[in-house]
């Protein structure tokens, strides 16, 4: 009888412990990963801003080839006024788990910012700084600015899709038309959908409006927060 009570007590304690650990994990995933990732990503944006300012602006071609950027390296800053006047996230090469914890990831093998084809990126919808948390708030015409060492590429949102995780045609050189030869300059953003799930992907397509060389700067008002944001 006594042994049974003792065993029951231990089992109860272990169950309580398991419950506490699960709660702790939820807290870590939903809160702490945001804290650390935001810190890292803000620091990366500051470093990039400084690097970009130090580099003398080249006068050559303004769209970069993605293959020039080593895997995991931050090479651009993404600004989306709809998501906040101070919204600035680093863009890193690659879309592995590690890379996406440090910012928005650029799909290997897709076009570079401002280039002909499909400049495709992925970001967390929730956790790890959740750069694309409000990706579903983007409306047609909303501006996405991608700042690199050489240029500002200004894209305007055209449409969105909700697709299965295997639907890689969204990042084809011509979005949704795999195999077609690209003539336009698209940008595709992917994030998980619905929030706190990875059952689907929320995909936003934007088309290049114009690329401005760094020396020229962005036209005034480009980064103005749209009404109702």
């Amino acid at each position, binding site marked *: 009888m006594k042994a049974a009570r003792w065993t029951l007590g231990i089992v109860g304690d272990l169950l309580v412990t398991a419950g506490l650990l699960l709660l*702790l*994990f939820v807290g870590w995933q939903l809160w702490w990963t945001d804290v650390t990732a935001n810190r890292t990503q803000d620091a990366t944006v500051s470093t990039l801003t400084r690097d970009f300012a130090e580099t003398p602006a080249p006068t050559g071609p303004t769209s970069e080839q993605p293959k020039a950027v080593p895997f995991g390296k931050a090479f651009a800053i993404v600004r989306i006024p709809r998501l906040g006047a101070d919204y600035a996230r680093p863009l890193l090469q690659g879309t592995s*788990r590690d890379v*996406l914890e440090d910012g928005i*990831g650029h799909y290997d093998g897709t076009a570079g910012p401002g280039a002909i084809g499909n400049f495709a990126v992925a970001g967390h919808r929730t956790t*790890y700084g959740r750069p694309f948390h409000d990706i579903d708030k983007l409306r047609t015409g909303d501006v996405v600015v991608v700042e690199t060492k050489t240029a500002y590429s200004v894209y305007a949102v055209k449409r969105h899709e*909700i*697709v299965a995780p*295997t639907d890689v045609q969204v990042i084809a050189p011509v979005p949704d038309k795999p195999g077609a030869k690209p003539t336009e300059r698209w940008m595709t953003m992917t994030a998980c959908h619905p929030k706190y799930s990875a059952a689907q992907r929320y995909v936003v397509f934007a088309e290049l409006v114009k690329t401005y060389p760094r020396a020229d700067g962005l036209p005034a008002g480009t980064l103005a927060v749209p009404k109702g944001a």
Partner: protein
Amino acid sequence: MLYAAIWRALPGPLAVRILLAAVLVLAVVAVCFLWLFPRIAPLMPFNDNTVDPSAARAASYVHQDHR
């Protein structure tokens, strides 16, 4: 029982015991946050944000409403 046993095993007066207990709790939280959780997070099914042909397993139960 487990926790009662740990509490009884802590030495010193009440104030010291409370301090020790707090340190132990913090140590467990730190190990979880800095070591354990980052290692088990990749196994969780809600952190994928990319489109990927190898995501077939995750896609098998998806209702496709886009075509």
